[in-house]
């Protein structure tokens, strides 16, 4: 495995009184693409949000690039090199598409230039001066991914990026992620679309009840199909 970029150990998190994560352990190596699988409600989204630092009621250890992230305030995580695409997309309605796209501050060199982004997502170019939330659901998803690509982060965290997207778009996003990977981007994503995930991931974590219950590389996928079918009902 490559040098670890993100190490999470014994991570616990709470929503008020309800304890949702019960000791999550995982590692993401530099340049790897990791997919978390799991049924609805097992805590996948929560894991991502806790790593990013949106959920502050947390205990355990999160190391990014060797640095302890637990005490880092939320607005500094992006500067450390973590980019986040939330499940609900988070497009701003008072901003135009283009303003949305250029909103996140560039934190490091190596981000994708705007022209390239527009090439990748022609829909966005066409509607760039309309208000962000006037886009369709799928267009919003593209915008949400696109805007992080600009910033030059090292680790891209995506929560169900293909949800509600037309198959063509899903394919395109798959290609984009592969391209990013070739450029050395590290990706951590949560995905229900198994076929999509299997095409791009290097490694999988399977989650249940707020913990990682197993971990395996893509090569082991065929032999694990049966158990996965059972656990996920794929």
């Amino acid at each position, binding site marked *: 495995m490559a040098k670890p970029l993100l190490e999470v150990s014994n991570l616990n998190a709470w929503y008020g009184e309800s304890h949702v994560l019960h000791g999550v352990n995982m590692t993401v190596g530099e340049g790897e693409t990791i997919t978390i699988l799991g049924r609805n409600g097992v805590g996948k989204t929560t894991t991502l949000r806790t790593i990013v630092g949106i959920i502050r009621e947390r205990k355990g250890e999160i190391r990014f690039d060797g640095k302890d992230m637990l005490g880092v305030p939320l607005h500094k995580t992006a500067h450390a090199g973590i980019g986040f695409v939330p499940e609900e997309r988070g497009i701003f309605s008072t901003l135009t598409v283009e303003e949305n796209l250029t909103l996140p501050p560039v934190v490091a060199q190596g981000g994708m230039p705007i022209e390239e982004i527009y090439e990748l997502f022609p829909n966005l170019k066409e509607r760039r001066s309309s208000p962000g939330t*006037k886009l369709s659901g799928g267009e919003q998803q593209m915008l949400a991914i696109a805007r992080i690509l600009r910033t030059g982060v090292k680790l891209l965290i995506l929560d169900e990026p293909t949800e509600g997207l*037309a198959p063509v778009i899903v394919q395109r996003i798959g290609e984009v992620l592969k391209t990013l990977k070739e450029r050395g981007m590290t990706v951590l994503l949560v995905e229900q679309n198994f076929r999509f995930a299997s095409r791009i991931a290097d490694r999988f974590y399977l989650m249940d009840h707020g913990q990682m219950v197993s971990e395996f590389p893509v090569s082991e996928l065929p032999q694990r199909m049966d158990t996965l079918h059972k656990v996920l009902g794929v």
Partner: protein
Amino acid sequence: MAVAATHNHAEPRVVLSARGLTKQFGAFAAVKNVDLDVHHARVHALIGPNGAGKTTVFNLLTKFLQPTAGTIALMGTDITKTPPDKVARMGLVRSFQISAVFPHLSVLDNVRVALQRPNGLSTQFWLPTSALNRLTARADELIEAVGLKRERNSLAADLSYGRKRVLEIATTLALDPQVLLLDEPMAGMGQEDIGTVSSIIREVAKTRAVLMVEHNLSVVADICHHVTVLQRGEILAEGDYATVSQDERVRLAYMGAEEA
């Protein structure tokens, strides 16, 4: 499964029809001149690339948006100018693309709130809440049918995203509508729920009309009798799934190379 009350005529007839439906947002036409017929006892799928105007069509049909041009008729009555709550009372009920539940009511109460209306129990401010207890049996039936029995007493807010979608279907069914409009009912659902919901929809559609937007093509192939493909606000193709999925333009615009 006791989801649907029994009606016995299953011959296909048009219950909801739109003619020349158009919606302009400023200079941008999201929906252009769409004709649509939804039949009784049929599952009708509306598919198309993102931004094609599917949700907008839903908003127009349910009157959450006022069409720029065109007419809509529900069971022979013109509803082009009817307010949305009235349309719902006439028997056309929708679900939302982003889940819509009453977060701080329990699952049971979510369903009972929906049941209250057809049962005429909504304006009685002089009755105690226990008057609603007579709706509980029916509510439990619906909850069980969609597989939410375990969560019956939790607050809707505490459900995961996928379970909320399921709950939304249950409340929609509670109204016993003649026409159901479901906006991506399976989005965010796990495989087991997809199975349950598919069979519910199939069951329900025996006695009423269903129009749904769905990106999950295996579901579409599985349960839909008729498919309309939208692209850039216009109808691109229409027919049963087999026909539509062979259409070259549809494959190019929507399904991509590998699917089907």
